[in-house]
């Protein structure tokens, strides 16, 4: 009985510390870390200071567990009010009507919708509704290790781009030269986690005329363009051995990778890098130079207890002034911020001219990865297929045909 008493008194203690607030307490859910999180907490405080009666508490969940935790919270009637949402979760949350329509907010003139490129909002629209506003609109760029290019005596991607010769043949040749002449791998296209295969891979597919899903959301991984792209990556992995095999933990920040495809925000990982690096546009393929546009946005959850206050907070977050501040970490979707001098010079590690060439100028041809609402299941199947594909001696088109059969059979 004593322990029961103890439990009760502990619970009373814990409960009192969270009670007693008469104010509207908005819960803002994010997976941000480090300086990004510090900034969001600061914004929350400033907002509360400007708006008497509203308080914002920032809640954090590791990115890998984010969507499932929010789903459990929503299922239990414990939904956060405002939150981040990554692009791959958008179809699922839309299909289950878990997001609030923000069109009354975006119709507001102060919001200035024309400031957003049409492509930036397409993922978040359904019917006449707008269900989220991106805060990060990030075309993937190519990071390259200047020291390795120098050692291998290869012209850098940025120089080749300015000469107009930066295509996938040049990419393969550069990777091979670095592999042969240094103890590093030439390039890494995918991230370490095969589940995130689409990062990097999609840009290569699109530039070769391939795709993951066609316009009717059927599997297109075995289309001729996709097969060509996968064959290239397979050859680079096993013939040239210039791409690391799945399971290899070599990362760009370790200095033993010539090139790597990721979002600009990856540069935060390179703070203490003991080598020189730069960014460049992705190579050009037979179907053009297409890069993947990564997005994450602000949403208001439909089960929010304070939908009105939550929308007002979202409006604040998505306003030009606040977006100019978050742009330090996340490439802003607002054109007015993106083209500002302040944004282009915000990253001390990247010269403004390079950022303009590699990122801003690539936006018109960048594409968002559109998926169906069963993407989570499809992605699991595809990741398994990619693992089978990257085995020595795999028959690329046979594996992909089989894979598409499975994906379409879901």
């Amino acid at each position: 009985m004593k322990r029961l008493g103890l439990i009760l008194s502990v619970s009373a203690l814990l409960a009192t510390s969270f009670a007693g607030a008469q104010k509207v307490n908005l819960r803002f859910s994010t997976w941000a870390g480090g300086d990004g999180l510090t900034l969001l907490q600061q914004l929350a405080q400033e907002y509360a200071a400007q708006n008497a009666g509203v308080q914002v508490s920032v809640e954090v969940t590791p990115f890998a567990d984010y969507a499932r935790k929010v789903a459990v919270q929503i299922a239990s009637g414990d939904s956060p009010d405002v939150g981040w949402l990554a692009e791959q979760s958008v179809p699922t949350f839309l299909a289950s009507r878990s997001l609030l329509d923000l069109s009354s907010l975006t119709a507001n003139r102060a919001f200035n919708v024309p400031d957003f490129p049409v492509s930036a909002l397409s993922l978040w629209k359904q019917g006449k509704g707008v269900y989220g506003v991106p805060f990060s609109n990030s075309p993937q760029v190519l990071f390259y290790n200047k020291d390795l290019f120098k050692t291998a005596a290869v012209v850098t991607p940025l120089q080749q781009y300015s000469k107009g010769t930066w295509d996938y043949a040049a990419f393969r040749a550069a990777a091979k030269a670095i592999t042969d002449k240094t103890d590093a791998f030439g390039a890494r296209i995918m991230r370490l986690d095969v589940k995130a295969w689409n990062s990097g891979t999609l840009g290569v597919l699109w530039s070769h005329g391939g795709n993951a899903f066609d316009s009717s959301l059927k599997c297109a991984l075995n289309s001729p363009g996709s097969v060509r792209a996968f064959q290239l990556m397979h050859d680079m992995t096993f013939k040239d051995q210039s791409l690391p095999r799945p399971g290899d933990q070599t990362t760009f920040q370790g200095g033993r990778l010539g090139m790597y495809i990721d979002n600009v925000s990856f540069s935060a990982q390179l703070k203490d890098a003991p080598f020189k690096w730069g960014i460049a546009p992705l190579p050009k393929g037979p179907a053009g130079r297409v890069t993947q546009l990564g997005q994450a946005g602000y949403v208001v959850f439909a089960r929010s207890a304070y939908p009105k206050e939550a929308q007002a907070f979202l409006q604040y977050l998505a306003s030009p002034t606040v977006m100019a501040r978050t742009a330090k970490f996340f490439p802003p979707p607002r054109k007015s911020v993106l083209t500002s001098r302040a944004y282009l010079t915000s990253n001390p590690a990247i010269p403004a001219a390079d950022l303009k060439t590699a990122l801003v100028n690539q936006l018109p041809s960048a594409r968002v990865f559109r998926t169906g609402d069963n993407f989570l299941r499809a992605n699991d199947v595809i990741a398994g297929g990619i693992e089978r594909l990257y085995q020595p001696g795999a028959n690329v088109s046979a594996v992909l045909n089989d894979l598409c059969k499975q994906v379409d059979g879901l």
Partner: protein
Amino acid sequence: MKTEGVGTGRWAAPEAAPVRRPVRWSGLLYLVLALVSLPFLLPLLWLFVSAFKSTSAIFGSPFDLKVSALTLTNFAQVFADYPFARQYFNSLYIAALVVPLTAAMAATAGYAFARLRFPGRDLIFILSLLAMMVPSELTAVPQFVLFSRLGLTNSHLPVIVLQIFSATGAFAVFLMRQHFITLPRELEDAGRVDGLGTLGVFWFILLPLSRPALATAAIFAVLNSWNDYFNPLIYLSREGLLTLPLALQRFTDPLGGVYWNLTLAAGVLVALPVLLAFMLAQRQFIESLAASGTKG
């Protein structure tokens, strides 16, 4: 051959049975032991060395054990830039609550299951075996609904309560029951002759004999509480409330990319106290296991 009373006293303390070995045999033994412990030592060594390296050194030359590349900045940054001290305190105090509560509950319930007859006992005991087997991932959603209706999310209470009553607690109860079964009945009868009631016998006679078993239950509770990931993940959302296994996932860049140097430095700090405690107390630990309910 009957071996009753195994649990009450060991036949021989290890000290009482010195095995004399010729010197060359012990040399060979050291060699074998060194070889066998290699796969256990190397990962530990790697963790400890990497914790003192920069990210580029961890990934660039992961198996380089050169001392010159080592630095303390990771540890400084872990405490300076993140609320790691606060999170460390959270884990400490949660363990400090979970352990005695689990032990107390397991002692009383274990005694009742082992020695007292009351209606429904066997059914309840089977249910507690069930509770021992249920993975926490399985019941997470209904539990979360329960606690959120009580308004207790974003507090440590669900994490503590679930640790006490789910698998950890059920295992402790099981362990204590097995322990009490091995104690001879005569002890109780003697107590009753002296005029003690059921609770008196438990408190004054049996409990003092149960320290090793309680210590064993406590050790499992410490390990489980210290390493608990899933429940804290679901219940705790504020940076200052997180516990250590979750905190280890929070050393990331703005979009979630992992800072491995900080994660590994923090990982060393998470592993260190339990490792040191085991090193200092390993003999008592093994002896308490030997004298505890693990015999049955």
